């Protein structure tokens, strides 16, 4: 391994390659901030450039920089504008956006940058040490386990149910699951619930729904509630507290440690990925937080931001395990990367480490450098990026609206998306007025399709639901999901009962 490490280091530390990684990070960060252009599309755009470089190592180093930059850029729009451009950063907006609203945009971005860096770095180390062994782990999961894993992911909604709005959160989750069934699934060759509209045939698009549920209602609220936005603007203008205090660092350090590892292992499973990792990270950290801290989740908890940010980056790194060792892309982004590798005459798979070790190691080292460069480049930029929020609201609101509309149009080039966006945006605003949480709807929508596909596949393979009892890991995961839902609501009820008892005593 040491020998490989040296090969990788000597490849990565050339002037050209360092320039590649810096360029890649910058391009990735800035394009990644636009919702609708996630890591997948940015990498697809950059691939022709990378291929013309000719040298596979340089190309991969450039792409790794773009990849990490894009993930970080995506978190930026989640945190500042409540406009998550990719599913993996939805959970970052749960606490990141409230922090930004409270005038702590700079701090939120700093936490995001540091968590991402740590997640990616720990992930890269785990990848380096365990990749060959983990290829078998990646294959332990069958459809039945993926189904159970999605159920565990859904238990993240318990975090929103704790506030006493259990029924509302459940209803929104259900609505999200129902919306996921629109269109042609992987399992049926006929479209469902499209009402004869061709534009619905491929289903509702994630980006349109995310913009409609989060960004658009936010912009509308800003218009309707000038007092609130003025206050936000005032604080945002100063951007107080860019630095993280020692106390805060001690608070998030264990979160980052746990989520780097948990996120990485979830990422190793092809078909789980960064989104599940971020939801699970959020749910787990909320569950093990103290009662005091739990109340902050959803209202600007630094733990609630650090958890998904760490987990999604660690998972992105983890997804390289099946890619490099088995040649299986676990996500859309790694599928595009696989395409790039093949175009460069590199065939990932069991033979990669033996046939071309320098490439294997260059990839791993480039991840590490990509992370480091990203942190170094972005920390000084954060105050400027955060200034977006100090734009006067009569400019900021049109800016958010433009951003939002563009995000949903750009991926599909389909104007109907805009109508769908506005329609759902209005519904979402009404729901927000009625105090329905919108995040569970989006979680349900994101997980719904995978939940259904894996469930149906298992049903077909086992000719019924016997797989739940036949496969111990499936059962275990389902029990875990049940615990993740029951324990917090039990704790919440007990806390309420205690509070009521005190009141009675008075």
């Amino acid at each position, binding site marked *: 391994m040491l020998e490989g490490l040296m090969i990788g280091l000597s490849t990565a530390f050339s002037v050209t390659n360092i320039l590649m990684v810096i360029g890649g990070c910058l391009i990735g960060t800035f394009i990644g901030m636009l919702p609708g252009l996630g890591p997948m599309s940015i990498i697809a755009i950059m691939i022709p450039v990378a291929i013309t470089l000719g040298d596979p190592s340089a190309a991969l180093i450039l792409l790794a920089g773009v990849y990490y930059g894009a993930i970080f850029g995506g978190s930026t729009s989640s945190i500042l504008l409540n406009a998550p451009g990719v599913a993996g950063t939805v959970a970052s907006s749960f606490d990141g956006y409230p922090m930004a609203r409270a005038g702590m945009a700079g701090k939120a971005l700093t936490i995001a940058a540091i968590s991402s860096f740590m997640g990616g770095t720990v992930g890269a180390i785990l990848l380096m040490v365990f990749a060959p062994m983990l290829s078998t782990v990646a294959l332990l999961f069958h459809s039945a386990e993926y189904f159970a894993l999605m159920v565990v992911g859904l238990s993240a909604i318990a975090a929103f149910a704790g506030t006493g709005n259990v029924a509302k959160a459940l209803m929104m989750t259900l609505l999200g699951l129902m919306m996921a069934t629109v269109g042609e699934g992987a399992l*049926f060759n006929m479209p469902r619930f499209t009402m004869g509209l061709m534009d619905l045939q491929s289903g509702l698009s994630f980006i349109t729904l995310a913009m409609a549920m989060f960004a658009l209602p936010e912009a509308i609220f800003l218009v309707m509630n000038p007092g609130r936005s003025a206050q936000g603007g005032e604080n945002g203008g100063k951007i107080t507290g860019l630095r993280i205090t020692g106390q805060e660092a001690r608070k998030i350090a264990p979160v980052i440690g746990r989520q780097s590892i948990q996120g990485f292992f979830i990422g190793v499973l092809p078909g789980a990925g960064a989104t599940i990792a971020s939801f699970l990270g959020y749910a787990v950290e909320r569950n093990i937080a103290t009662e005091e801290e739990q109340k902050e989740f959803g209202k600007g908890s630094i733990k609630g931001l650090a958890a998904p940010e760490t987990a999604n980056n660690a998972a992105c790194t983890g997804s390289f395990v099946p890619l490099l060792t088995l040649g299986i892309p676990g996500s859309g982004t790694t*599928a595009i990367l696989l395409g790039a590798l093949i175009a460069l005459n590199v065939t990932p798979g069991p033979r990669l480490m033996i046939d071309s070790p320098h490439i294997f190691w260059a990839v791993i080292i480039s991840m590490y450098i990509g992370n480091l460069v990203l942190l170094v480049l972005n920390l000084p930029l954060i105050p400027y990026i955060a200034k977006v929020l100090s734009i006067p609201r009569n400019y900021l609101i049109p800016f958010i609206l433009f951003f939002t509309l563009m995000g949903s149009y750009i991926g599909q080039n389909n104007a109907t998306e805009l109508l769908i966006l506005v329609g759902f945006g209005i519904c979402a605003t009404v729901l927000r007025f009625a105090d329905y949480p919108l995040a569970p709807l989006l979680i349900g929508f994101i997980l719904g399709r995978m939940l259904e596909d894996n469930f149906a596949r298992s049903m077909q393979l086992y000719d019924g639901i016997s797989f739940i009892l036949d496969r111990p890991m499936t059962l275990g995961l389902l029990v875990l999901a049940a615990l993740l839902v029951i324990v917090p609501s039990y704790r919440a009820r007990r806390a309420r009962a205690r509070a009521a008892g005190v009141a009675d005593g008075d």
Partner: protein
Amino acid sequence: MTSFALGRRALMAAAAAALTFGTPASAEQVLDKVHFLIPGGAGGGWDGTARGTGEALTKGGLVGTASYENMSGGGGGKAIGYMIENAESLDDTLMVNSTPIVIRSLTGVFPHNFRDLTLVAGTIGDYAAMVVAKDSPINNMEEFLEAYREDPRGTAVGGGSVPGGMDHLVAAMVMQSAGEDPTALKYIPYDAGGKAMAALLSGEIKALSTGFSEAIALADAGEVKILGVTADERVPAYDTAPTMSEQGLDTTFVNWRGFFGAPGLSEDKVAAYQDALAKMYDTDAWEDVRARNGWVNIHNSGDDFRSFLEGQEKTIGDLMKQLGFL
């Protein structure tokens, strides 16, 4: 997006073609400009085909400039509707399409079929293949069929398309030619090629029905054994893979990709398009694009294209009826 799996080759094609601009050249230009209409989003197999073809046509000097437009929706149906509704103004437009236009017209996913358009030419194709994991005890189709007869419910075949989609139909065709009931085959659909492959390696499915170029890539990586390919004779690019027919299974299948014009396109224009595409095969630019993407040249122009499509429509239609999808 289409529900057909984007194989790695297709993804690569898309990726490689995402940023290619035509550089006008002078050598016996056939057409001034071509506008490619792509019925799916950026990054899919159709996208890669259109942009790769445009690149070869412009670099090879056959066409002055090429432009591209992605119009996704309705699994390709939206773009077909657009071609038909705006036929008069679409003289310079070529739409890319592939086998799904036949399948989806049959299932009625969209109301039109290939006869509503002007057929220009089929340009490339990919055969289908059945593969098993490297360490599987199964080595050829005969052993696969034996395993299937022993335990039909435990011998699941996976693929990257919906039930009734291309990968399923190929597997069913194979079972049919082996004298088995194609409806009894347990077909498990996956939404992307990578996941189906993971399922094969994890033992969830016993065999995988997939595109031949993808199968070659997997076999090169030392992960799968190719049981059979649906070509008439062994494919030179990978001639250790036996055909289905040499193993006594009369199954041939080509997943073609090709180009269509708006209905009522003038004969001169059609001829010019066909001429440009036919000459494209001799250019170095095309050879670059083709090799980069691992495509197989399968050229069917004009009437040949029509009879090819009619033949495929009949085969697939009969099978789908038998499988209960129609």
